[in-house]
């Protein structure tokens, strides 16, 4: 089932898994003592993953069933804010046994650090994931310094 994952994806999933191993004992009481001040408790909609490469920072929002045009994405002082609303249609005549899916307004804030270029941001939506790609400033990229 995982045969089609590339080596890169596998190595990154390894990292996510290690993050889990590291964070999980702290989270057993439902409180995250190691999380950032703006991080949200587990299960908050939408779930977010963030990765960094030498060129950019990519934020993945696990936001199924959304109209991406209605998402409000803004960057200010190194903080990325994403807000929107997910409307869940309720069938008044039906009998509901479970209502676990999130419905309503949401807002999440991600701290990006100082080195992203707020002018060079692109976003796309596929299979319920919003990917926001933010270029990093050239000066923030690791450089090879030549020694004369």
């Amino acid at each position, binding site marked *: *089932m*995982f045969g*089609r*994952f590339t080596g*890169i*994806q*596998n190595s*990154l*999933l390894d*990292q*996510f*898994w290690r*993050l*889990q191993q590291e964070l999980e004992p702290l989270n057993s009481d439902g409180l995250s003592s190691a999380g*950032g001040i703006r*991080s*949200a408790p*587990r299960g*908050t909609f*939408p*779930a*977010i*993953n*963030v*990765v*960094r*490469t*030498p*060129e*950019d*920072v*990519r934020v*993945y929002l*696990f*936001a*199924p*069933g*959304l109209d991406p045009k209605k998402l409000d994405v803004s960057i200010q002082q190194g903080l990325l804010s994403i807000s929107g609303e997910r409307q*869940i249609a309720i*069938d008044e*005549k*039906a*009998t*509901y*046994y*479970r*209502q*676990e*899916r*999130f419905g309503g307004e949401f807002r999440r804030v*991600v701290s990006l650090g100082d080195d992203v270029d707020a002018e060079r941001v692109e976003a796309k*939506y*596929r*299979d*319920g*994931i919003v*990917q926001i790609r933010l270029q990093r400033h050239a000066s923030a990229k690791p450089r090879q310094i030549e020694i004369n």
Partner: protein
Amino acid sequence: MATNSSEIAGQKSPTAAPSQRERAMESAIGAPADIFEDGEGINLVVDMPGVSKERLEVRVDGDNLLLEGTVQFELPEQAEALYADIRSTLYRRSFVLSRELETEKIQANLKDGVLTVHIPKRMALRPRKIEVQGA
């Protein structure tokens, strides 16, 4: 997408690192679901962001309905994980079906990471309106 059950049941070397599959099994993401019933049948709506049609499995096994999907998203080279709410790549939910449901006629649809499943009730068991005869 056939699951390789021998992979799960197969012998594991105690020293070997857990395979990607085993890790995912340990920590499958519980996809949130809405379930409701109307006169026609039962409907499930399940959030599975990042799952495409090719990576989704809807299976009836005996009286069990199994929903399984693997997440895939575009990851660049040299990526370093900074933060992760989602730390597994497998969504899994299963439900026990009941006898009045017509499992051969299950319909499933996936759009923007939302899976909708409709399980019709057998015709004979659908609620009927009974006419009350006046005197």
